């Protein structure tokens, strides 16, 4: 596939690896913000190859992992209602709420429908006029244009049985929370390529200036990641802290104007409870008042969602890079993909799940 296969070229990847190894005089600690990058780093074996050269720590980059337990509980409650179809991305189904996951609810008879696109959920609303279709709108800024467009479509078609349970989160406030922690270990960031595709990277300028940390906008394929890592390592070796864009085929400085307009039209910035973090000021998006008739929380008369957390799960430490997943005392033991204690073990993007899947087989982990 064009624009995929060439970025997975083994020989080119080896040359970049070599270059990184040559460049690094000692072992730098980088954080990849996005779970998609975590996935790719582990799937393609990059993290393993860089052991001793670059330590990659996994950021709060999975909107699935950070979705507040209270929101999941509410989604589960909605899915249990006879009049509701709860539509969701597949990723959310195994994430545990305080009692149960959406998959558990479906197992117990609730109606949960996996969709590829929020627009497919609008189609469901068209097809089942006697049901309320609630789309569980999780995701970073990348996904917000698609959910915003779903609202616009529902509005155009006058669908009164469509609403969103919005749990969109914003990346940069979380990065700030993270580096505000006195003991953080991050020396440079790989910024999330698709978030930047939508939002651009202008806003990182002040971040770089404030925290004096390199930020490199990075894509998702092996060469993209290796290039981003190399750029970070070079800056670090040169004791620089600049904002770089290594994913320029998709990312422009100002992002995508139409996408930002869509997001701006439908949403407004709000505080948001992040799983494992607590409430992050300006850490999420909510429907603007003009579109509040599409807000499932209002439609189903539920006000504030409690911030709930499984206390045993050390996801905060994992997501802030304080703890390698494998160093969590529960990892691979009580906490496994089939019996997750926390969200990072659930989502296929979650750092713990990624380590479990790519780094450790079941035998290995328990041996």
């Amino acid at each position, binding site marked *: 596939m064009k624009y995929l296969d060439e970025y997975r070229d083994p020989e080119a990847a080896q040359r970049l690896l070599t270059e990184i190894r040559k460049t690094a005089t000692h072992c730098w600690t980088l954080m990849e913000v996005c779970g998609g990058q975590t996935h790719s780093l582990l799937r393609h074996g990059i993290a*393993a190859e860089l052991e001793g050269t670059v330590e990659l720590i996994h950021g709060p980059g999975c909107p699935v992992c950070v979705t507040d337990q209270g929101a999941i509980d509410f989604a589960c409650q909605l899915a249990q209602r006879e009049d509701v179809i709860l539509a969701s991305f597949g990723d959310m189904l195994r994430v545990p709420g305080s009692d149960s996951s959406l998959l558990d609810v479906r197992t117990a008879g609730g109606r949960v429908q996996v969709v590829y696109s929020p627009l497919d959920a609008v189609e469901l609303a068209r097809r089942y006029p006697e049901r309320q279709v609630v789309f569980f709108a999780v995701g970073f800024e990348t996904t917000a244009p698609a959910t915003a467009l779903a609202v616009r479509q529902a509005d155009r078609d006058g669908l009164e049985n469509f609403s969103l349970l919005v749990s969109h989160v914003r990346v940069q406030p979380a990065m700030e929370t993270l580096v505000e922690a006195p003991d953080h270990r991050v020396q440079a960031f790989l910024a999330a390529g698709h978030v930047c595709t939508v939002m651009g990277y202008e806003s990182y300028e002040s971040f770089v200036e404030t925290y004096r940390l390199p930020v490199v906008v990075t894509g998702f394929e092996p060469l993209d990641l290796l290039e981003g890592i190399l750029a970070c390592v070079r800056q670090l070796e040169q004791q620089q802290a600049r904002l770089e864009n290594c994913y320029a085929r998709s990312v422009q400085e100002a992002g995508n104007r139409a996408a930002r307009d869509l997001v701006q039209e439908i949403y407004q910035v709000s505080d948001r409870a992040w799983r494992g973090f607590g409430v992050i000021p300006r850490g999420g998006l909510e429907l603007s008042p003009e579109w509040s008739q599409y807000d499932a929380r209002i439609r189903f008369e539920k006000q504030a969602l409690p911030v709930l957390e499984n206390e045993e799960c050390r996801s905060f430490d994992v997501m802030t890079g304080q703890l390698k997943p494998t160093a969590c005392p529960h990892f691979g033991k009580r906490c496994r993909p089939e019996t997750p204690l926390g969200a990072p073990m659930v989502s296929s993007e979650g750092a713990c799940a990624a380590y479990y899947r790519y780094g450790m*087989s079941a035998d290995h982990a328990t041996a």
Partner: protein
Amino acid sequence: MSERERNLSGSWQLNCPVLLLTTSDCVTLAHGEGGRLSRKLIQECILKTLQPVSSLCLNDAAPLPRSERPLAMTTDSYVITPLFFPGGDIGSLAVYGTVNDLAVSGARPLWLTLSLIIEEGLPLAVLERILESVAQTAAETGVQIMAGDTKVVPRGAADGLFINTAGVGELMDPVPVGPDRIQAGDELIVSGPVGQHGIAVMAVREELGVEPVPQSDSGSLFPAVENLRHKLGARVRCLRDATRGGVSAVLHEWAAASDMTLSIEERLIPVTPEVRGISELLGLDPLHIANEGTMLIAVEQGAGAEAVAELQGLPGMSGAQKIGEARERGIAAVTVRRTLGAEQPLADPLGSPLPRIC
């Protein structure tokens, strides 16, 4: 395309003879309750359609012809949604699936039983069309349907139609020794592109709206098995149709049985462009997706090239590839080499992969 649309719209042409008996053109509970309508359905719809490939009678059990060879037996239930999918339907699947289970066990498929669990409301024409597919597939694979059963359950108690087939076949000499005898150096071969069935069904069921609709690989593995065994004899260690859980599930089962590490290379895995495109779109790994006419084969060290050449010469098997080999147990039960060439564990999926956005 127009075929598919017809399937999905449910506008069947009605010509099942049992229709003459009832005002409904659908299966009703009464069709399953042992009275007159039951007998009519069985005699005038099921037996008539299956007659060319069947020794079915209304008696409780059917005698089997004598066989000189030892026999093997298997069973599978087919619960696929939708009932018709690009490249097949539940009827052909129910025959191929059990034929393949016999074939990969080293048996020549001979006799099947056919058991239908029908949801009240299934159009009779749909049932007839599926039975025709059963009959045609049985004829193609040379199996006889020896006994049958029909149950009708109330609306909402099943999903259209479930089919169970049990199969008996004659074991051919030599019987493959089985995955517990896989040794270091054994070569792993896949008989064709992987993931086609699962992706085809998902594309229709989830209404992904992709074009062209990918086709299931649903088909008989017996000719390939017979040829392989003819050519390679006891150098074939074991074979397995890579159904639920895909190639990955078979590798994990074999690794557990043999205590070897089974190691494959991603770049060697054959994948069609349709499967590739959809897998990337949904974040799925074709190694975990179900197949219905594609098998994994373990052969003795050194026999891989001959096996691949033999397979590639057979109709529909031109995509056969060696994908890896067995080694003494290393870092994990199953490993895969991807872009960077390092060996890493291949996940044993928890369940069917769900489409991802993350």
